[in-house]
Each structure stands twice: as C-alpha cells, then as structure tokens.
C-alpha cells in the first residue's frame, strides 16, 4: 500500500503559491473542499486562477477567497449567486472565463485521462466558439476544446482510505471525481479517513493512484444554498 495521508490541511496545501492554477470540486456549495478553502484564506495565497463550476456565495465557498481578493481569474460555468463576484467582474478586478458546464467537466476529465483536446457540439455558433477550431462530424458542427492545465486539484469526498481511494456521497460527487488526477498534485479532503482495507474495492469511485495527499477534514458546515421543502397538505 502506498500511503497518501498527510497530518492536516496545512501539510496538504504545502506548495500552493501565489499565481497558481487550482481546480476545486463542488457544485454550488455541495461537495466543496471546505477545509482547504478556509486554509487558503488563512494562507493569504494570492493571484489564484480557480477552475470551479461555481464561485460560492458571498460568505461561503470560493466567495471567501473572492472577499479577500485572492482570486485573479475564475473559470466557471455559472456564477449567479454571488454579488461580490459580480462587482469584481464588472469593475474589471476579476478576470472571468465562462464556459459550458459539460465542457468544463470534460476539460477536467481530459486532463485526468491524458487527452490533450476533444471536439464537442456545445457552444458551436455562440461566442464560446470564437477563435476555436470548428469541424463537422457526422453532419454536425463541433468545436475543439483543450484539457485544462492546473497546478493543484482539491477535491472533497465522503470517505477515503490511507491509499487515497475515494467514495463520494449523493450529488456531492459532481466535479470531484473529474478533477482527481487532473492537476500536477491532487489533494483530497474527506469526512472520514479510514485505514487501508476498510473500504470495499468494489465500491471505490476514484482509485488512490489519482490522489497525492489525503486528510480528514473537520467541522463540515455543508451549507444548503436553496433549502426547498415539500408542503404537507
């Protein structure tokens, strides 16, 4: 067994420097690496390029890094829930690259899987296609998209083991499995870190080969963005 455990979030985030490109898992506030984001705020790492589907809300998730102006550029598909984000974007303080969600996911997966580029129909004929190679396959137009290049990927899983194997829960899975192994170094924070052998190999979603460092996070807040309930008639 190759042991991937590190003692804490500080050790996990060793080597993250100003100006780096970081992938962060999560969809909205669901499945985000809360401990690592809090530590990045504490470390005051600046000029980050963040690849993440969303940008958090004003006072949680990546919104915490935006508040402290630690993000230079965001690469996301949807950023609608964050007033501070909007302010920084409109004032030009923040560079923003909005890309289709499936393209974002596939650019992560391509990086993970060693595929330098791929063709997708998403965005053809729109401003997303500007400057990109277009090609027809089977009578339909596609545009070429490239794999991401990132320094660190930070993912959040439900359970993990010392070997770096990961299991996700519900829709907190989202971008996390796509980002594991898609950067030079992958950090996984998990709610429960178990000894190797505790997880059934049949049930593992992401094998430890894609994870460089794993640690057990603390005090997950798991904030709900849109609490929606059924009425009892």
């Amino acid at each position, binding site marked *: 067994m190759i042991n991937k455990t590190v003692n804490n979030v500080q050790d996990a985030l060793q080597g993250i420097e100003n100006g780096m490109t970081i992938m962060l898992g999560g969809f909205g506030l669901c499945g985000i690496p809360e401990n690592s984001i809090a530590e990045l705020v504490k470390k005051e790492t600046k000029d980050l390029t963040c690849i993440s*589907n969303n940008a958090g809300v004003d006072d949680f998730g990546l919104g915490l890094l935006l508040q402290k102006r630690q993000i230079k550029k965001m690469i996301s598909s949807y950023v609608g829930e964050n007033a501070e984000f909007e302010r920084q974007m409109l004032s030009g303080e923040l560079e923003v690259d*909005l890309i289709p969600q499936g393209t974002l996911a596939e650019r992560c997966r391509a990086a993970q899987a060693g595929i330098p580029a791929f063709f997708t*129909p998403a965005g053809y004929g*729109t401003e997303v296609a500007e400057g990109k190679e277009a090609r027809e396959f089977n009578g339909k137009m596609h545009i070429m998209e490239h794999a991401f290049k990132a320094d660190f990927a930070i993912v959040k899983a439900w359970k993990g083991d010392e070997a770096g194997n990961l299991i*996700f829960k519900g829709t907190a899975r989202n971008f996390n499995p796509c980002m594991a192994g898609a950067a030079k170094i992958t950090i996984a924070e998990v709610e429960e870190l178990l000894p190797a052998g505790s997880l059934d190999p049949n049930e593992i979603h992401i094998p430890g080969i894609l994870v460089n460092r794993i640690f057990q996070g603390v005090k997950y807040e798991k904030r709900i963005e849109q609490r*929606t*309930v059924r009425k009892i008639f």
Partner: protein
Amino acid sequence: MALDKNQIAQRIAQELKHNYYVNLGIGIPTLVANYIPEGIDVEFQSENGVLGMGPFPFEGDEDADLINAGKQTITTLPGASFFDSAFSFGMIRGQHVDLTILGAMEVSENGDIANWKIPGKMVKGMGGAMDLVASAENIIVAMMHINKAGESKILKRCTLPLTGVGCVKKVVTELAVMEITPKGFKLLERAPGVTVEHIIASTEANLIIEGEIPEMIIG
C-alpha cells in the same frame, strides 16, 4: 386567457412519453414534474449528477449532499443513481436523455435560442444550457411570448448572445404552442380564449398558420 406558468408546465407535460428520461431546466420547466400524466413513467435527470430525482424533501429531511441543478434540496426515487459531472454530460451529449425542457429569453424561427446572457446586465453564465441544447435530440422551450415591455420574444433572429443554433423543436408560451419547421414557426395550438390575431400581433417572427388552430386543452 393567457396561461399562467403552471398551465404552461401542464401543457408541456402532455409532451412526456412513457419511459422518457427527461432533463428539466430551472424555472417553468421544473414545474412540469408536478403534472406527469396518469400512466406515464418518466425519470428526471439533473445534470449535476442524478437520475431518478424525486420531489422536494419534507422539512427536516433535507440533505446538503442531495441537490438538483438549481441547487435546491431534493429526494431520489427507487431506481435512482448518482454519477459525476463528466459522466452526466456524456449522457447528455450521447443523446441518452430523451427530452430537454428549458426556459428562454428569445427563440428565433430557425430554432436558435438565447437564454444565458444580457450584455451589461446579466452575466451569470450558461451552466449546462449550451451542452444541453447542442446535444439534445428533442428540445421544448417553455417561455413567455412577450417581455415585460410588451415586446415579442418569438423572433426572426435572436438579438441576445446565443446559447445554441438551430436546436429548438417546439415552443410553449402563455399564448401558443408552436413547432419550428424548416420554414419557420408553425402555430399548432392557441391558449383558451386567445385569438390567432392576438398571437400574430404578439409575434415578431412570421407564423405559418394552416387551417383552424385548436385551443390547448389544460387540466
């Protein structure tokens, strides 16, 4: 009478077929789930990574790890499954989802759709909309026929930045059901009590009108 949002959803629900996998967008499309016709089994896909989405949870049962693409808390039904985002969009691009229902700000007579950006005003991002419209075989748009300023949103050419080109098949508004044909919008049905003349006056694009146009049947 023009339809309200629930009635638009009710009319669109009539397009659901037995054993369809369906992706519902945010807004009016979400309401379609409330009107699944009797005897029809469908499974809802949410692009953040779930198939077999159920109704909202009862108070106290909300799970932060279980949400839909609108970030609302949800439940799952028997037979449900979870998957990652790349897989989810693979399922969409691979045309395994039978029907996509989404909202729009503008639709044009060649099937173009604009629903993600108003330059200088609203720049929130396209989310999964561009992947969905570029990939889905069958797209129905739920939208309002005219905007708050009284201007038509059913156009010869979209004025807003596009989400996708030549992809919309059918549009259901508060006034009408229209099909997009190679020759443009064809009026299929009108809202109860709404005249063909009123629909023509509310539509900037040309409308193909053949014979009597029946009223929609709602409820």
